[in-house]
């Protein structure tokens, strides 16, 4: 069987020998792989604020996340798959959070639980509050509520399971930890006179100069691609007939971007392999 090509498993016409009929079921590797992953998502034991109380209540006997294979909360990021950002993210705390995120092994997921983690919530205007975890770390599921009830959190966890179910081993974008290798760590913010995201130094310098020149609020520019899509959507809105055509264009563009990203990813992996 050494010559078995796993890709053949996707082919439903794959012949099962007579003596093994009734003992074998054929399914896709992705499905088995995802089933095992989704049923044992270990969250990090990591509470920030009020939402953490509801998170604990969800883990306790009445709501019981053990039903979803999530009862094992690990205090170490190295042993956990899921970071539930449960509460207000402050500028002082975002530094350790990003560090913890970087320490988690892939595959890793982030749930922004509650209004604060999703977008700043009631404390958004505060001088020490970050407007949402997604400013620094990619977020998979957002759960509204202040705080979300345990039912809402469970709904979010099920949404995450669905997301895991939809990922395919065949697509390197879905499972980059097999395809391209571990993703790059998120640069850790710096606490200066205010919090500094190192990725944005250029923008910061530019805007700071604008401010110094006496322009109190410079116009923020949208990134080029997003701008194009936005203008297209607006022009499409003018004529109803053009809507479907425009959305097709957008989809094609997104598809092209995805393909390009993937080719880059493959090239990166080739280079890595060649090096080793």
């Amino acid at each position, binding site marked *: 069987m050494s010559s078995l090509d796993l890709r053949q498993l996707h082919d439903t016409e794959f012949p099962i020998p007579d003596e093994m009929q009734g003992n074998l079921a054929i399914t896709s590797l992705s499905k088995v792989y995802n089933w095992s992953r989704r049923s044992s998502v270990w969250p990090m034991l990591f509470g920030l604020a009020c939402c953490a109380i509801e998170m604990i209540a969800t883990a306790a006997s009445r709501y019981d996340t053990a039903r979803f294979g999530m009862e094992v909360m690990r205090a170490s990021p190295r042993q956990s798959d899921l970071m539930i950002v449960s509460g207000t993210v402050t500028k*002082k705390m975002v530094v350790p959070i990003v560090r*913890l995120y970087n320490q988690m092994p892939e595959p890793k997921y982030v749930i922004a639980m509650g209004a604060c983690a999703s977008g700043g919530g009631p404390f958004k205007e505060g*001088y*020490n509050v*970050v407007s949402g975890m997604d400013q620094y770390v990619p977020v998979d599921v957002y759960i509204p509520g202040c705080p979300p009830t345990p039912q809402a959190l469970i709904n979010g966890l099920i949404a995450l399971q669905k997301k895991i179910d939809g990922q395919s081993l065949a697509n390197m974008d879905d499972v980059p930890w097999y395809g391209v290798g571990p993703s790059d760590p998120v640069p850790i913010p710096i*606490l*200066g*006179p205010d919090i500094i995201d190192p990725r944005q130094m250029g923008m910061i310098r530019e805007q700071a100069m604008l401010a110094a020149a006496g322009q109190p609020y410079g116009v923020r520019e949208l990134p080029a691609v997003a701008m194009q899509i936005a203008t297209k959507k607006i022009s499409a809105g003018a004529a109803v007939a053009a809507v479907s055509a425009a959305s097709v264009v957008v989809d094609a563009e997104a598809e092209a971007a995805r393909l390009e990203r993937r080719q880059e990813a493959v090239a990166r992996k080739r280079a890595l392999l060649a090096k080793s």
Partner: protein
Amino acid sequence: MTDQMIAPVRPETVDVDAAIGILKERFPDAVKDDTREGYVGVVVERSQLVEVATAIRDELGFDYLSSATAVDYLGIEDSMEMVYHAYRISGGKPLVFKAQTPRENSSIPSLIDIWPGVDFQEREAYDLYGISFPGHPNQKRILMWEGFNGHPMRKDWKEAYYEAELKPFESRWPKGYVRRSEELNIFGKNVAYPADFDLSRLSDDTEASLYAGMGLGVDVEALNSDEELKTDRLVVNLGPHHPSTHGVFRMVVTLNGETIETLEPVMGYLHRNHEKIGERNAWNHNMPFTDRLDYISSMSNNLGYALAVEQLMSRGMRYTPPTYRAEVIRVLMVELTRIVNHLWAIGFLLNDLGAFFTPALYAIAEREKILDFFEATAGSRLMCNYMRFGGVFKDIPERIRSTANLLNDKVRDFETTQYLTQLITETLPRAVDELDTFLTDSEIIKTRTIGVGYLPTETAIAYSAAGPLLRGSGVAYDVRRAEPYSIYPELDFDVAVRYNGDIYDRYLLRIDEMRESLRILKQILPRLERTKGESFFSGNKAVYMPRVAIGEAYGRVENPKGELGYYVVSQGDPKGPQNPWRYHVRAPSFINLTVLGQMCKGQKVADVVAILGSIDIVLGETDR
């Protein structure tokens, strides 16, 4: 009889007005009455503050400094002042004294030698207001990080999402045209960078300044001496991400072997600018924010804030105090909250001791039944936002549908009175007894907790400890009895007190307090029945914005975690919509932590976690 009449008046027993008289006689130049409209107490010349404070403590007997906070009067007086509320541990009204300083180069002598409990509060005033405290041994930022630009609570400091001084903002109300804050901020985030900002010139010394002065490394001379072998000291960071720190709290611990030499709490990881936001909000906007202080006991936080603002409103016109039914419902809610909190605290203390999650699961299961009642009444399990100035916002519902009491997988529909009666007379007493039976005599718990984390009575008072931490050290001080509010004077209950001042006694005290709360609740039930149908709100509901009289007020309640105080100052237009000029929260969790370093000194590192658990902190309140 004649002996008593001849005996001179003892200054430490006279009432507050007489005490102020004595003080003015003693320091005619330094102490003056606070004559501003709506203000109480005295203003003390800052150069003599230490002498006056010593006299207040030693001669007049005000030995418990409840709160010390700063106020910025920019535009009104162009000065800043520190406001101190000193109480007698035997109960009674506060002696309020203030010290003023100009806004430039502001400094006020530190009172840390008189009341060590001001330590963190002075550091907070330095951090947020920039007032320096000569004489403070460890004056550095406490909530923000070292190197942060400016002192954010000053009235002329604007946050990055600044829109206007006061809410409701023009952009949202009454026209309803909303602009997102991101569009107003030049950087698109809640960040403002100085104009000449440059990363290369930045030196991050946040951590370095923390470790400075901790006395690390080997003492070479000690190695050469013939004394016992000295080992290198080791610094251990507990937190901010640590399962036992009850949130994002951090302790920097210096160890000698396994013994703790110094412990320094580091906080601010959940500093979400409660007070700055509170000063922009209108008076009743702050009610839902108080929920998020001590998020386990939101009902009690509501009551404290309502009491403080009602104090102010009672000085104005057209104010009617809360109705009797409102007070009954308030006490019902607050005492249920106390049980919720203590169940949680005991469950997690056991977690910290190593009984991982089993006791907590039992405690949480009982808690859920109370939360069901909260949800049916206020609409939310955790953030109830239930009290209003002059009552509560809604009556108790007729029926309650509870999922915690599933019967054959069906949600049960109860009559509320029946549900409450069963909860208070059967379910909760049984739960408390159950915890008591299984935990109190446990050999492991006794070994781990008896004699650990000892806090002597005098230290507890001097460090302004409050709540179970204070009462566990033998001080029968409970705001419900010391300065009664609501309908507590007519209720029959005892102040729980334990005398050994260790973790075990604090645990026992919480069991006692739950039993006392149940005793109160049993007296509440007939009152609830008797007042059925009466009004639960005294004010005029059509009034959206309450009119608050000008002046200051300090409202305090006995929260499950200790004394929760709100210091509010009202300035501005008494006719139009108003906002608090100053809105300060005297958080028990924050001030109880002042003594943590003392309690942990000489203990083993494994006990730190248990000692912290026995103080029972919550970070929303610690960092605000």
